[in-house]
């Protein structure tokens, strides 16, 4: 792989233009990365669709089921008579279920965020420490020299 990159001070209309040119030239979007120190004010097509909200809701439902199971297990494992309440009283169970549902939703959100964003230990970080606030870096991983020449023409010329 040969990396060709260019830095763009922001705001910069050339960034969107060059991205469109790369796509027209048949460069796979997986080869293209736009890096920045802060979110860009423009919408770029590289983000893809997220399943974060769907999985967060799924996690919340799992948390709710787990909480109800935990409460049921606890109250029937060691039966305590408290103020005439049934062993499995809906209100105390509801409080714990509510907390565990939200905790599961939060933890699932973070885990899915890590997975979708490709974060975590052991992954390779491209060395771009020179990237500053207020600029974007368009990086293309080219397959061969011929493709690299095409990309160089688009980005540099």
């Amino acid at each position: 792989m040969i990396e060709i990159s260019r830095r763009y001070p922001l705001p910069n209309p050339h960034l969107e233009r060059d991205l469109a040119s790369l796509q027209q030239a048949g460069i796979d979007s997986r080869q293209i990365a736009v890096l920045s120190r802060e979110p860009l004010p423009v919408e770029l097509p590289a983000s893809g669709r997220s399943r974060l909200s769907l999985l967060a809701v799924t996690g919340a439902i799992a948390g709710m089921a787990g909480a109800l199971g935990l409460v049921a297990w606890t109250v029937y494992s060691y039966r305590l008579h408290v103020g005439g309440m049934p062993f499995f009283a809906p209100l105390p169970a509801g409080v714990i279920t509510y907390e565990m549902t939200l905790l599961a939703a939060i933890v699932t959100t973070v885990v899915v965020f890590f997975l979708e964003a490709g974060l975590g230990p052991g992954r390779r970080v491209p060395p771009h420490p020179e990237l500053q606030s207020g600029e974007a870096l368009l990086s293309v991983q080219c397959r061969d020299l011929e493709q690299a020449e095409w990309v160089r023409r688009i980005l540099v010329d």
Partner: protein
Amino acid sequence: MSTAAPVSTRLLAPLYGGSRRFRLIVMALAAIVACAAAAFLTQAVVGLGLTGMRRPVFWGFYITNFVFWIGISHAGTLISAILRLTKATWRRPITRCAEAITVFALMIGGLFPILHLGRPWLFYWLAPYANQRVIWPNIHSPLEWDFFAISTYFSGSLLYLYLPLIPDLALIRDRSAGWRRRLYGALAVNWQGTQKQWHRLEFAIQLMAAAIIGVAISVHTIVSWDFSMSIVPSWHSTIFGPYFVAGAIFSGIAALIIVMALLRRLLHFEQWLQPVHFDNLGKLLLTMSLLWGYFVAAEMITVWYGNDPSEMASFWARVSQNYAPLFWTMVACNFLIPFPILAIKKLRTITGTVIASSTVVVGMWLERFLIVVPGLAEQRLPFDRWLGYVPRWPEIVITVGSFAAMTLLYLLFSRLFPMISIWEVTEPQPVAEAVPVPVAVRNEIQEEAQ
């Protein structure tokens, strides 16, 4: 640091400093915390008889501090989450200062029920883990609900602090060498700043903000249920849930204003923590002061009109007997002093809001004390009233130590992590937010489009 230096360099400057004054402050605070730890160890060895807690007042300073610190914790995550969801652009420099308060206040607040135990080393019995007697925490007890609520809030707040920190950690990683590069590299989890990562990060923060608001409100409601679920005069009240939540937000905003003023002064954040932030938070504090006054008045009038003898004993103890000096100090600190300062625009300056916030913090601590102690001291049996509550040295030392611990943790955090979210303050704002478009120009654009 010159104002010509890039924003990120200026915001990261405190991480690379380390004056002698800073080290002296840290050592002094650590000494106070060590004294508090020694007091706790002594109490653990000798027993709770060393404290001023006696029948019928079996909750004293420790539970007061627990409720107070959990309330302070509402400064951060809740306020930050609300401001993020409403897309208030002025929030950008203050969110991290606020979120850090939550984490440390919860760490300290969560310790107090453990300090209050006769056998603190058995605190883990609250956790529903499988042991030789299967699992047996009392799920029906509000104290058990506290365990779940505070654990959830702490975990959520820690993650909510960490997520927006990742891009800044990556920035520090890229600018550092040696141990810093290794530390921040590990914490930055290989953040690169791709558009996909930014998209997912912003989405995850929004989702977490929505969830964390629900958790924050439930936490203080559950803390209020520790009291209101008991048939104790002045505790058994349906208003306690919203009253506690409002009080928590009130004290939380006050703590945030004080911390912001200190950061502005000590770390030279004048460019980011501007008078407009104090003005906006001052308006919020004013609203909460009014709401607090409304809740107190509603509660007091209902009790007085009901004229139940056991409730009235506690009522008069607070208003005109033993606890009256504390009660009227609380009213002055929470309403009479802050109200004019915050209501008059000329007085709602940085100094003004800090003065108002300082009185509110004192007033809210007194409010927590006046909820916990008079209700227990003024019970139905007449002889109960002879035995008041006077805190003894371990309670006082540990209380002072908790304030020192909060300051110490915050100072150390400010030396390890940027206290202002760099990517949020440098993020280009949408044109509509950055520069208001005059109506004439807007009409012209619309006509052109048609």
